[in-house]
């Protein structure tokens, strides 16, 4: 039928059967050999890419929140450090003031004590000298006038004399 429709040459229906069978076989072989593994691989790849995109998004947000946390911690520790330094400064100032005040007081005390000692010693020395002079002069006088003067009368006499000397010196 078709042979007259087309080119006038004969068509062999055996060929048709041959091609149909061969093509079906070819479909089967291609499916086993390439189609299944390749499409599976393509599907796997598509899945993997979408997973990768998801996990990349997740790790990006994780990193962002981590950065935020770190920043907050950094700010906190900076404030803490400032407080510590401030405290240390205040303490130092206080201690310095204390030490200086203590030193001043000590020095004052020392100075006062020294003054006192000096005064005391001068007093003692003067008293000693007075007594010595009194005794000496009694001895001398007793030796000179060969008689025992009343020690107290003598002392009063010498005191008045020395006082007169001191006034004479001071003037």
């Amino acid at each position, binding site marked *: 039928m078709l042979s007259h429709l087309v080119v006038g040459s*004969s068509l062999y229906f055996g*060929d048709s059967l041959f091609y149909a069978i061969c093509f079906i076989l*070819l479909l089967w072989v291609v499916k086993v050999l390439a189609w299944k593994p*390749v499409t599976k*691989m393509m599907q796997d790849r598509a899945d993997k890419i979408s997973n990768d995109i998801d996990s990349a998004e997740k790790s990006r947000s994780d990193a962002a929140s981590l950065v935020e946390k770190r920043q907050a911690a950094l700010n906190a520790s900076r404030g803490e450090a400032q407080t510590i330094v401030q405290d240390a400064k205040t303490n130092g100032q206080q201690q310095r003031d204390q030490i200086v005040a203590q030193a001043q007081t000590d020095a004052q005390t020392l100075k006062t004590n020294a003054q006192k000692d000096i005064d005391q010693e001068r007093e003692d020395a003067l008293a000693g000298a007075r007594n010595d002079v009194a005794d000496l002069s009694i001895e001398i006088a007793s030796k000179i006038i060969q008689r025992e003067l009343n020690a107290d009368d003598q002392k009063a006499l010498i005191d008045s004399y020395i006082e007169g000397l001191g006034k004479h010196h001071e003037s």
Partner: protein
Amino acid sequence: MNDGPVSTFQFLGLTFSTANVVSGLVVFLLVLAVVFFTSRHLAMKPTKGQNFLEWLIEFTNGILKGSIPSNEVSGFGLYGFTLFLFLFLSNQLGLFIQLAMPNGATVVRSPTSDPIVTLTFSLMTLMIAQFSGVQKLGYKKHFANYLKPFVVWLPISIFEEFTNFLTLGLRIFGVIFSGEMLLKLIWGLATSHGLVTMIVAIPIEMVWQGFSAFLGAIQAFVFVTLSSVYISQKLEVEE
């Protein structure tokens, strides 16, 4: 080409054309070789051959997606891929290799330059269309489509199936057959008057060969496109 003496043989009471059987086998083996050598060492990161194969699969799937709803494409992907590869290699085969027996009967040429081959594939496509239509819609809805838009449309619907079958098969046959015919004519011209015609004809031959290679690719593409259109028509209920 069927202009010379034709070599045939008998098998199981059927007549076979030697040229069709031999060149068909050549193309089947070529398809197998292409598919085999590009699908070795499949990896997540594709290498040369795998890249090519995946590109080809994407390409034929893209053709199918043009008309078949995308959730149904996977069922026809293998058919579209194998059909495209087979038709493309068939169309190119005759442009580069033409072998004839001593008595002038051709043995190797494009299988698609014989209408019986192209009509076989056309019939195959339409059978797949009918089958998948019945499978998806059921017999009742499938055959009810022939009565739409009017009941009296039935003869036209049936006639349309027949013309689809003929045009799908004969379009590709016509282009490939005429391409090979013209190649032979130009070659005849080249050898007719010695060196002078040879110099003139060889560039023409080369140009026509290149154009035919282009047409062969286009025709394989068109065949797969139309196949997917015919299949998609059977997958939906006509309004």
